[in-house]
């Protein structure tokens, strides 16, 4: 059907929302961003009131985290929560430089032969789904580097 006369013909990019507030999609490359204590440098994800390490109540600073790291620990979930597809790999990733994050490891066979602790990984993002308003949720995971 032809667009009604007078309708704007600009293409509107689909709105995106990150799965969590510590995934930053505002730049060219998706990034994980931590809250850094301005006194001791301790890192956190999510909203903060004070520093658990040094008790500082000064405002936190934005700390961009590396997109690469290594698998600190993992598990292969075979019996998953209702509605969650199994098997999948859950891991704690040590990010290069500083910071740690929990995420899935994807694009790897979910077997103890294919995934090892210490394995280098890199950040990747993907669509989790689109809501009724057309907003796309963007998730993140890690994949072998």
């Amino acid at each position: 059907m032809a667009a009604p006369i007078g309708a704007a013909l600009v293409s509107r990019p689909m709105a995106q929302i990150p799965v969590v507030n510590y995934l930053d999609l505002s730049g060219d490359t998706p990034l994980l961003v931590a809250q850094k204590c301005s006194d001791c440098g301790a890192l956190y994800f999510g909203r903060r009131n004070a520093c658990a390490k040094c008790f500082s109540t000064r405002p936190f600073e934005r700390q961009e985290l590396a997109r690469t790291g290594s698998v600190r620990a993992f598990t292969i979930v075979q019996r998953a929560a209702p509605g969650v597809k199994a098997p999948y790999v859950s891991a704690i990733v040590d990010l290069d430089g500083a910071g740690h994050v929990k995420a899935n490891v994807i694009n790897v066979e979910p077997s103890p032969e294919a995934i090892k602790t210490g394995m280098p990984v890199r950040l990747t993002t993907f669509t989790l789904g689109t809501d009724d308003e057309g907003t796309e949720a963007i998730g993140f995971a890690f994949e072998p580097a």
Partner: protein
Amino acid sequence: MTDDVYIIGATMHKFGRFPDKDSMDMASEVSINALADAGVTMADIGVLGCGSLLEPGSGQRLLHEIGATGIPVYNVVNACATGATAIRAAYLTLKAGEADVGMAVGFEKMGKAGLLGLRPGTDSNVFTPSGRSGNVVPSEGVLGTGLMPGVFAEVGMDYARQNDGVGFEQFAKVAEKSHAHSTLNPLSQYRKAFTLEEIMNAEVIAWPNTLPMCGPTGDGAACVILVTGERLKSMPAETRKRAVKISASVMTSDPFVDTDMAAPDVNTLTRDAAKKAYEISGVDPQDLDLVELHDCFATAELVHYDNLGLCAPGEAGKFIDERGPWRDGKIPVNVSGGLVSKGHPLGCTGVANLVEVATHLRGEAGDRQIDGAKVGLTHVIGLGSACAIHVLEKVG
């Protein structure tokens, strides 16, 4: 110097699934039995510590079943350390001199509860950030797993990464040992031995944890009666003879570590609590005749061998390979069958492990008795995280 505190009553209900009883039936039964075991009545009890995760605030309801005398009740919830926290409430009241006989009860009616750890998520059709990290979808399975089998699998794998000689086989050996132990315990939810091969070939829940490496959910209740040393002096000789001294009662929470941003820490607070418990009691880990530690999963038990100093640093794999924690080994661990086989009715667990150790120190553990047991240690950990350690010693 405050007075010492002793256990003079210690009973538990068999763990399992008991659809014909409700929580009050089970809690009443263990309380009434513990009072009889201690040779006291509710008229003697000056404080109640009551722990249950699924039915918090039940202590007064219990008193209205067994004896409502107007005493203070501390209803506590502290994850899987709930039972031990209830004991601490009674213990601290005695230490403070506010009462000289106290009761602590832990109970849970779970039935068959399935996988634990699921958090409710949003079911809106419009993505709306919620919570402190602004989640727009439930994170389970999207940002790793928060279910207990996987969380504790990662705890074990973190240890395996840092220490040689630890892997799937060592974790499976832990479960082989615990299931074998449980065959001697009539109070255990399961009493079936498995071969190492059966355990390694069983259904994987969250690798490396297979089904027999995961603690079952179920029902349970346990009770201890505590008394001050001063009051114990005036009690009958038989009560004094069977009294078990609490040589250390320590509780910690998880101090800040860098990895908190990714996963809860179950190690540092256990190490801190153990160090303090050994200092207070003057007991060396190598003096321990038995240990009941928090093996919600086989992967968890292995790391606590190291955290509690039962083996040399980094040698938890060697410890299980050499059968150190078997009942005839260097330091018997979880001779009850542990959470993996005896069961883990959440709020009850931290009372039941003191009952188990006290029963051995009294020489009344029947077929599973560790002969000549004089010193034992109990450990529980609740994720998020709370740790309690008690060192118990035979006195009579």
